[in-house]
């Protein structure tokens, strides 16, 4: 069976359209770059100031002045552009980014995301996450359905939230869920899971789409 994280990344790849400007967060979101559907071209933006970020360089070809938002050396594709941090967040906050894919700690039944701190245990700081969730045209959350068996899709976030903006899509290894003003709509399910199983691993109530499909 395909690794759960790869399954999530592959499904999110299918959400991207030709010409999209896309920002991928650290972790599962980074894997999405391996699953861009054939025939489309997307542009990767990184908040440290580049559009047109390419894959990791071959060993020995690193340039310390060319990194991604995780501090790793990357490459710049032909046609890429560099800018300062104010421009980078003008793109993000100003609604010029088509899609952001971020990891999540919790999403609640209003589609509100918490992904930047666990009080008393992990306080990394929000970095660019609050701007990304507030400003991108589409926010896709990539996360495993549960953490140590505990649901991550909850009635109400107990962790500090990232933005009061409702996210657009949640993709886990078990389900594709679309938040809407009335709650959370289960749009797709893993072919090896039943709706009842998915609901039992989800604290928030799931509405089931009439045209529920299997995840591909």
């Amino acid at each position: 069976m395909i690794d759960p994280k790869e399954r999530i990344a592959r499904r999110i790849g299918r959400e991207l359209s030709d010409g999209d400007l896309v920002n991928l967060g650290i972790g599962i979101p980074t894997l999405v770059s391996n699953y861009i559907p054939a025939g489309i071209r997307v542009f990767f933006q990184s908040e440290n100031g580049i559009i047109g970020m390419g894959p990791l360089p071959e060993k020995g070809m690193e340039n310390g002045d060319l990194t991604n938002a995780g501090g790793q050396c990357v490459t710049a594709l032909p046609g890429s552009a560099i800018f300062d941090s104010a421009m980078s967040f003008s793109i993000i906050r100003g609604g010029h980014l088509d899609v952001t894919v971020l990891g999540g700690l919790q999403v609640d039944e209003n589609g509100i995301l918490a992904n930047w701190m666990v009080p008393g245990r992990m306080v990394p700081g929000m970095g660019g996450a609050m701007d990304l969730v507030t400003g991108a045209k589409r926010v896709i959350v990539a996360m495993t359905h549960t953490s140590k068996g505990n649901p991550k899709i909850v009635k109400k976030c107990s962790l500090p939230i990232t933005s009061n903006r409702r996210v657009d899509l949640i993709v886990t290894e078990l389900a594709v869920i679309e938040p809407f003003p009335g709650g959370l709509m289960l749009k797709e399910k893993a072919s090896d899971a039943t709706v009842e199983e998915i609901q039992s691993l989800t604290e928030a109530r799931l509405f089931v789409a009439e045209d529920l499909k299997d995840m591909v």
Partner: protein
Amino acid sequence: MRIVGMKETISLIKKDSSVMIGGFLGCGSPDCIINEIVENEISGLTLVANDTAFPEMGVGKLIVNKCASKIVVSHIGTNPETQRQMIEGELEVELVPQGTLAERIRAGGVGLGGILTPTGVGTVVQDGKKVVTIDGKDYLMELPLRADFALVKAKKADYFGNLVFSLTARNFNPLMVLACDTVIVEVEEIVPVGSLSPDEIHIPGVFVHYIAVGGRLQ
């Protein structure tokens, strides 16, 4: 603009100064100036930077060596020592969303009394801040940031102080130049006046007070 030795840059910076430092997780930080601060055991600094990098890199070294008493940053997750000092109460940490940090620095440099941003509305970032509603949408009023010194890293300068940055080592550096009373720039090389095309220059030399050549580490 004066060209100075690396050691002289540090004689300008006093204990308890406020200092903005360019860089993003160590990329584009003035590493030689940072090393001088550490060696001279300058302490009590208030730092404004994107992040505290890694313990052995960039701004991270200033944290490990206890040079700072307060930091204003967007991210500390890659430096466990920052988190430890924060939890122990040795270091005051103000966490600011990255885009808000960039605009607060920019506001400080361009004569704006603050900015209105939707980022942080309804989150803990809103605590204690004024909310302004415009056309039915809420914004936080965020205040400008300024500091005594900007410590900036550029790829090269000419002898007028005109600066050119390199790739993603640019990040916060150009914003900080305008937001500080004294601007100290570490460059890898100084080139003759006229050898840089006017179009190529990212920051005009009129803003730069001191330049020190650090060469290229790493």
